[in-house]
């Protein structure tokens, strides 16, 4: 469930644009005003505000924000103001440019979006970067990582609930055999994870658990901790079956600064606020005994903190 709070009575896009313009006028910037508007508008509304702002001032709202704001807060506002497809395209492009074997952002975008959302990202990528996302991913990644990641970003999964139980049984068995032999990058494993529908994949891993008495993720935990590909594989399965758990793990590392995933906090809050941040928050609390909002306010400051709290739906606006 989303955490975004939009009041039932919302000013017109041009009124919002006017207000935003006033937030930039004069010395300094009125960040509170920016947050009070942008953090409480849906993606469609933000799109209209951007258009209205451009008509009124002749400049792209994002350019102005870029000029006026700094670092974490700016990043949060930038990601938030972009349309979801464009946002994902931006995240993917950044991920390819600074790709390392620990980078899981490409997989995250490919596996936690719906087929339609991923498609929009691919279209936005064409428009913004004048090439296809799969070209860039293929060009910047290597070996087993490339095989898995190109397949994942190219997928256009069937989204129905139909499940073939015989197939689930077969493929659960297949996966079990490959994993036993530590054949993590086997073609069939990649094929199953990157082409099957999410419903089918869930059925397959439920079957796996029935047969072997253990969740696949637990089995994979017993592998080599330093094996980055194995880590990516586990995250892939998690994203396809229980994305909220994946996000909780990433958030925890980000907040405790134990990971190398810079910007994860901003990325996850802005990309999930309109999707399932509520569920993620609930799961976070369950696993860490502290509400997500509290963990965030302990770790962040100033306008950046206010923005994140607003997106969590926890401010008073």
């Amino acid at each position, binding site marked *: 469930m989303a955490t975004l709070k939009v009041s039932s009575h919302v000013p017109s896009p041009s009124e919002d644009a006017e207000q935003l313009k006033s937030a930039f006028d004069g010395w300094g910037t009125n960040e509170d005003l920016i947050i009070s508007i942008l953090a409480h508008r849906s993606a469609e509304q933000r799109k209209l505000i951007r258009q209205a702002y451009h008509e009124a001032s002749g400049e792209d709202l994002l350019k102005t924000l870029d000029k006026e704001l700094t670092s974490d807060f700016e990043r949060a506002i930038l990601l938030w103001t972009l349309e979801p497809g464009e946002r994902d395209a931006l995240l993917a492009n950044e991920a390819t440019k600074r790709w390392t074997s620990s980078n899981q952002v490409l997989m995250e975008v490919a596996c936690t979006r719906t087929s339609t959302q991923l498609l929009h990202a691919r279209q936005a990528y*064409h428009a913004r970067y*004048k090439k*296809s996302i799969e*070209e860039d991913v293929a060009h910047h990644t290597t070996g087993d990582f490339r095989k898995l990641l190109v*397949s994942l970003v190219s997928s*256009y*999964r*069937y989204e129905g609930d139909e499940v073939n139980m015989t197939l689930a049984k077969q493929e659960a068995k297949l996966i079990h055999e490959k994993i036993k032999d530590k054949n993590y990058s086997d073609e069939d494993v990649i*094929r199953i994870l990157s082409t099957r529908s999410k419903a089918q994949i869930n059925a397959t891993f439920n079957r796996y658990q029935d047969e072997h008495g253990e969740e696949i993720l637990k089995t994979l935990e017993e592998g080599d901790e330093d094996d980055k590909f194995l880590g990516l594989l586990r995250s892939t399965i998690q994203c396809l079956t229980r994305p909220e758990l994946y996000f909780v793990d990433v958030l925890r590392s980000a907040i405790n600064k134990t990971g190398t995933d810079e910007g994860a906090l901003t990325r996850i809050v802005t990309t999930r606020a309109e999707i399932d941040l509520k569920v993620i928050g609930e799961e976070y609390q369950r696993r860490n005994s502290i509400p997500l909002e509290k963990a965030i306010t302990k770790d962040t400051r100033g306008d950046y903190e206010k923005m994140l709290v607003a997106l969590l739906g926890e401010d008073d606006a």
Partner: protein
Amino acid sequence: MAHTLDLESIVEAISGKNVGMGVDEKALISTLGNSHKDHRKLFRKASKSFFEEDEERAFEKCHDQFVKHLKLEFSRFNNAVVMWSMHPWERDARVVKKALKKGDECYSLIVEVACTRSSEDLLGARKAYHSLFDQSMEEDIASNIHGARRKLLVGLVSAYRYEGNKVKDDSAKSDAKILAEAVASPGEKAIENDEVVRILSTRSKLHLQHLYKHYNQIKGSDLLGGVSESSILNDALLCLLKPSVYFSKILNASLNKDADKGTKKWLTRVFVTRADHSDELKEIAEEYNQRYGETLAQNIQEKTRGNYRDFLLTLLSKSN
């Protein structure tokens, strides 16, 4: 000149409702053959007993019964009519499904659909596949094809190529070098090469055109001259770079007097699937002319008969 029929008469004619009253087949051919694709869309929307709206994916899907019914009645002509009235996305999805079922020798059909359609049309075919077969095109291909060809075929159908006019020539040049080395490998080794798969299934067609130019310079020979032992690789290259040459070759094979039944059907497929794209059929006909010294129209006139022939010729003249 045959008069044109209204939508209702067409629907009745095709449904066989007017049994005994005869179908004015000339009028049917003329109307359908000359119809603009938007007109056919209206036809599909109006024929609720034969087509069902898939609102989510924005196309009108053929009822199975309708497909079966027509196939029983009309043979080659009607196969053409059925294909022609279908939404292009459904057509392509069904072509791929059929190719998968038939096996090995038909995999070039998958290459054809994946490589000669625009990015939007290939995507549309994948949407239609979801709707028709409750699975994704790539999963069906991936689970039914094994061995060397799987990687390339899955890659090709998953592509959503950039279609703008920006290209990095030096990138194309280095890809050309990679391809130049790999392509000479024996058997199907070339398509097992991950770099070859990457280049063919992710690069834009414009990029590949630049690559083509560089390859020919580097090697001093034509990349499209059947350089590889892998027929599927040669087909993919031809489809991506010179589709009208590919199609004219296919047409030639299907018009050959020794062609078997399966090959003869290619004639229908090429005509029906390319006729919607204004200049394509014209280009194909010109290429055919250049290559084989006879006009396509003439060959069709000689080698086919009856309503089928008239339908094909109508489609051909529509493009002129």
